[in-house]
């Protein structure tokens, strides 16, 4: 029987990898995405434009503008001469942030009164705007501190695991999970649907293979694709992008296999409830987009409304991404990751057995 299973697995691999186009489709996007997304997906603000309306013109405001122009956040300073131009710069998205120094700015500062600065943000990009305003306020605070008295206590911040808060260190481990999801799900979800559409599924059913074996034969290539694609991105992350890898490699591989199994379960489940490839494809999408959104990659899960937190409990990505980050940044071994590994296995068991049940019913 094992021999038959092996034959089926080999046949599945031949179907997937035999076609040049299909092979390219499994390799090219992964390479391109690994090259592009780490640079794109950053919430840092750099090279943005700052519009300044300086009604003051005194020495203090000129000094501050010079300091602002030296920060990485603002590469361009656009000086405007009236309120209308300031508004236009924001409206047309020519500037992310606008500052106005009022007429009495330098005078207030010289006489020891509190000097006001008005900061205007673009609400269409209020997140980036707030981050940029944070950089600006740091410049102002430093300037104020130089003029004021030394405080008695200080606050020191240290970022563990990622001292300089490099965004790439957060994005690349997450990408290992996100990018492999597409390949693995499509391969498993479309496999049964394709056989059904092409009529070869009946041939498979009259063979001596039992439904469980057929399912195993369909799941193995999916898991293999997840592991190969994931390893590729992980290697690129560690060597190409220099993300430190501090944890254990066996844990990483175990995590990939478990995650692959969970995905294969989801894929086969979708496959067994869809009549054709189109429906299977839509099912994959209906699962994948929310799964990525709720994984904690874009925003932390604890900030979501309760309902979505519950949904996230069933999301394999929300376990795999912490495993990956642990392996890369947090020196995780099996003991640290156990609480993340078993839910993946549980998801795999539930989805695989559900798929098998539906599968059997279809046959009967």
């Amino acid at each position, binding site marked *: 029987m094992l021999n038959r299973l092996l034959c089926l697995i080999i046949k599945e691999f031949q179907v997937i990898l035999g076609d040049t186009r299909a092979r390219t489709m499994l390799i090219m996007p992964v390479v391109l995405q690994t090259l592009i997304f780490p640079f794109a997906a950053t919430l840092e603000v750099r090279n943005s434009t700052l519009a300044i309306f300086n009604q003051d013109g005194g020495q203090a405001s000129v000094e501050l503008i010079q300091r602002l122009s030296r920060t990485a956040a603002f590469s361009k300073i656009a000086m405007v001469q009236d309120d209308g131009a300031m508004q236009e710069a924001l409206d047309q998205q020519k500037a992310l942030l606008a500052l106005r120094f009022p007429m009495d700015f330098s005078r207030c500062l010289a006489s020891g009164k*509190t000097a006001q600065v008005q900061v205007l943000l673009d609400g269409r990009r209020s997140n980036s705007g707030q981050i940029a*305003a944070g950089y600006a306020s740091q410049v102002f605070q430093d300037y104020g501190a130089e003029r004021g008295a030394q405080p*008695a206590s200080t606050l020191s911040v240290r970022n563990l695991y990622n001292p300089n808060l490099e965004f790439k260190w957060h994005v690349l481990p997450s990408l290992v999970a996100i990018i492999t999801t597409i390949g693995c799900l499509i391969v498993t979800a479309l496999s049964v649907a394709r056989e059904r559409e092409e009529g070869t599924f009946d041939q498979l059913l009259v063979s001596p293979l039992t439904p469980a074996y057929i399912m195993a034969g369909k799941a193995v290539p999916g898991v293999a694709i997840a592991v190969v694609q994931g390893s590729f991105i992980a290697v690129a992350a560690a060597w190409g992008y220099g993300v430190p890898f501090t944890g254990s490699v066996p844990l990483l591989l175990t995590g990939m296999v478990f995650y692959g199994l969970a995905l294969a379960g989801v894929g086969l489940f979708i496959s067994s409830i869809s009549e054709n490839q189109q429906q299977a494809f839509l099912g994959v999408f209906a699962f994948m987009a929310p799964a990525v959104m709720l994984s904690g990659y874009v925003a932390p899960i604890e900030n979501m409304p309760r309902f979505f937190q519950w949904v996230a409990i069933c999301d394999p990505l929300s376990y795999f991404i912490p495993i990956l980050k642990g392996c890369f940044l947090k020196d995780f071994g099996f003991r640290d990751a156990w609480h993340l590994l078993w839910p993946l296995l549980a998801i795999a068991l539930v989805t695989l057995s559900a798929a098998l049940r539906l599968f059997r019913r279809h046959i009967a």
Partner: protein
Amino acid sequence: MKKLNPRRLWALCRKESYQIVRDPSSILVAFILPVILLFVMGYAINLDADHMRIGLLREDPGPAAVRLEQTLRASRYFEVHAGTSRDGLVTRMAHGEIRGIVIVKGDFTSKLKQGHGDAAIQVLTDGAEPNTAAFIAAYARGAFDTWQQGLAADLGAHPSPALDLRLRTWFNPSNVSRNFLVPGSIAVVMTIIGALLTSLVVAREWERGTMEALLATPVTKAELLMSKIIPYYILGMLAMVLCLGVSVFLMGVPFRGSLAALFGLSTLFLGCALGMGLFLSTVLRSQFNAALAALTSAFLPALMLSGFVFEIDSMPKILQFLTRIIPARYFASSLQTLFQAGTVGALLWVNALGLGLLMLFWLGLTAWKTRRTLD
């Protein structure tokens, strides 16, 4: 190219519409998926972090340290969990249970009294989540400033800060990130729908062999293409209306622009998205490959490169250039403007131009690749 025959076109459109209506999955994509995705994106992606869980290790019983703890607990940004050892808290942070740790050492009060300025409060953050880490550092600094001012006020001094930054956010005064994320999400959702709906249609005909039958009829290339575009355009516009309704009436996002501008821009955008899907379908001729291509070229680029969460100016120059060929970039910017700022003429015209050129590009490419032979 031969002239369009309206009757033949009508018949083909009807055939395509029947296929849509009779397949429950198209209805799922056009009407149910957008609503789910909008809710997920609008509520689950909450960039306004509050109630972040932090650990507190206070080894100093002095009043100043207690006061700091009270300040932290009073902050609406933090949910403070007291800990007993540094190692224990660091382990909890490694497991993601808390996102930051504030440490007040045992000698804090005595150092504060000496007044050498070396009474230090340490904040540790989980750098594996850079965005959250930055928020925690910023809010901890805010709480620290409040605490310092409180201490100074007790001593009778009323230090007024030398500089006062007055922040005001235009269009979105209370800084609700949903107000700009939902319009941006609509761009992502519409990209997905456009590409998903059409990426399979031509490939399906090739795979099922019905293309052969279709080519045996006198149908022209233009008729064939238009019969694939028109029904899906109508479906896409209906989905757009649904998205608009859900975001304005259910999610309470203000819409301040003109509906005519929205209609025009959506048409151009759907032209791009449908054109791209049709192109992939025409070239790849297999549903499996077209599905994979549509997923990778529609969803992730729209999410990562459209500038709706991730600032385009912060990307390297070459990627900034690449975003110019992503239709979602122009559509996300247009939608965010129409929803929040109103009809800002110049900006919308530039976006319309970008979308128009991309639409011509994709539809032209599809037309060029569409053959009337079986080769």
